[in-house]
């Protein structure tokens, strides 16, 4: 694994000094900060529309919003918007360096191809975990400010479960990008894989035993539904290892 540390250092500096530091954190922070406020205002907005006859005279009575609604906004946003954003952003995680020619300069030095792939996966995973943690703290802070109550544990658990799924997506995109030169092509394949995973949730055993169970898990954790996450988390972690291993194999055979 020669060259891993040096290349990982480059990857982390690149995240900090290019567009990448703005996009994912920008999306996550916007959603983290706006979610609780939106949760607070949504019932009032609907009520005002109902009172003004904007809903064809229908009267809608909504309960007062709570911290749980704010957290639901957060889990819904990361499960949908952030997941799709990850697929687009990570479409070129490997192929971008191959297309720009920088991979050639690096890999003609004593840097192994597994080190190259693992550093890519590790740096993006670190970036994802830190960004998500900052986003979770931000949404907790705003929730507390708006609702005067914001339990930490349930938010941490729901966010942690989603993080495992996000790492699965990162590993998936690492493999796809190692296989396909086009960033948009890789993103398309990533979208396809996630759609298939969503369809798989219609089948009970897939939800119970595969990473597909992680798709709805953050919301289930939040609602306190009695769900067993042991198998989805375990198979999700195994899938991460297998996908990264596949990326190493695919990239190792690739001619540059």
């Amino acid at each position: 694994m020669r060259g891993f540390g040096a290349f990982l250092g480059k990857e982390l500096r690149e995240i900090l000094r290019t567009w990448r530091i703005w996009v994912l954190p920008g999306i996550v922070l916007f959603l983290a900060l706006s979610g609780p406020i939106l949760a607070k205002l949504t019932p009032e907005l609907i009520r005002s529309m109902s009172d003004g006859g904007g809903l064809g005279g229908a009267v809608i009575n909504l309960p007062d919003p709570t911290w749980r609604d704010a957290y639901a906004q957060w889990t819904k946003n990361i499960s949908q918007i952030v997941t799709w954003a990850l697929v687009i952003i990570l479409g070129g995680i490997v192929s971008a360096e191959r297309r720009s020619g920088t991979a050639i300069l690096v890999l003609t030095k004593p840097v192994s191809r597994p080190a190259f792939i693992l550093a890519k996966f590790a740096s993006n995973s670190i970036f994802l975990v830190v960004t998500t943690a900052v986003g979770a703290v931000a949404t907790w802070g705003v929730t507390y400010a708006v609702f005067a109550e914001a339990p930490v544990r349930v938010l941490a658990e729901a966010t942690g479960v989603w993080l495992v799924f996000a790492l699965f997506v990162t590993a998936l995109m690492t493999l796809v990008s190692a296989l396909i030169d086009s960033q948009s092509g890789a993103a398309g394949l990533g979208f396809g894989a996630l759609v298939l995973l969503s369809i798989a949730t219609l089948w009970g055993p897939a939800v119970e035993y595969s990473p597909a169970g992680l798709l709805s898990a953050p919301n289930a954790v939040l609602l306190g539904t009695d769900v067993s996450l042991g198998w989805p988390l375990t198979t999700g972690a195994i899938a991460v290892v297998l996908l990264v291993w596949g990326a190493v194999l695919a990239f190792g055979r690739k001619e540059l």
Partner: protein
Amino acid sequence: MTVPAIELTGLAKHYGSFHALDGIDLLVPEGSVFGFLGPNGAGKTTTLRILTGLAQATSGSAKVFGSDVASAGNDVRARIGFLPDVPGFYDWMTAEEFMRFTGSLFGITGSTLEDRVKALLDLAGLADVRSRIGGYSRGMKQRLGVAQALINAPSLLMLDEPTSALDPIGRKEVLDMIASLAGRTTVFFSTHILSDVERVCDTVAILDRGRVVAQAPIEELKSRYGAQKIVLEVTAAADALARRFSAESWVSAVERENHSVVLTVNDIDAARREIPPALVSEGAGLARMEGGEVSLEEVFVELVGGER
């Protein structure tokens, strides 16, 4: 006997039915500045990609300092410096940052790294440039490319078409950098620009359609083909001589220059027999007769161009 810097034996690379390399044999002596010459598409870049581990040969072997590149991996790469034909840089870095990064990939640290970065940026004329690489000209990027290839003080420096996309000033700067390395490291330099090879290389191999058609020190190659060029300087009847020789089957080409007739011959023995009587017959007073100077371009055209 010293181990050659590069040793290719029956090296072949096939893409389906297309043979990019067709069993080439090549020896690059240690310490030489070796020109790997060939037209576009001859297989130069493919050879370099195999030598650097970026691609795998279909058959044959490629050795660098006696180690097979396919199995030695990082051990070989630790001893080489490489500049690809279109080098890609991280545009957000400065030249100094890029040099430090490449040094770190070799595990070079501390004062050794500091000293090398400074010396190589000086050599590349980039010591005072503080801007990011994204704003550099092609010439600056190419000079940085040569500098980064030297960060590990390589035993073998491989350069793929380092001057092909540069303007005359950029070319001169890069060639000066390469020339300054003579005697310090082995340089393996691929190009299709003949004048660059003549200027900096001492030995050359000519590659055409995946095959090595000639390999020798440049002077030997030129003298080998120069023996077939004869310059006759006469006091009279140069035009008549030129017309007469044009009709001979042993003459490939005739050029007229003032009082001289330059013959390119395909049968040197026939030339030796036929020239003296022709001079007498035309009444041309012979002032000088000698073997002509042949340029590498003429050798190249004869070896490569004739079949096209």
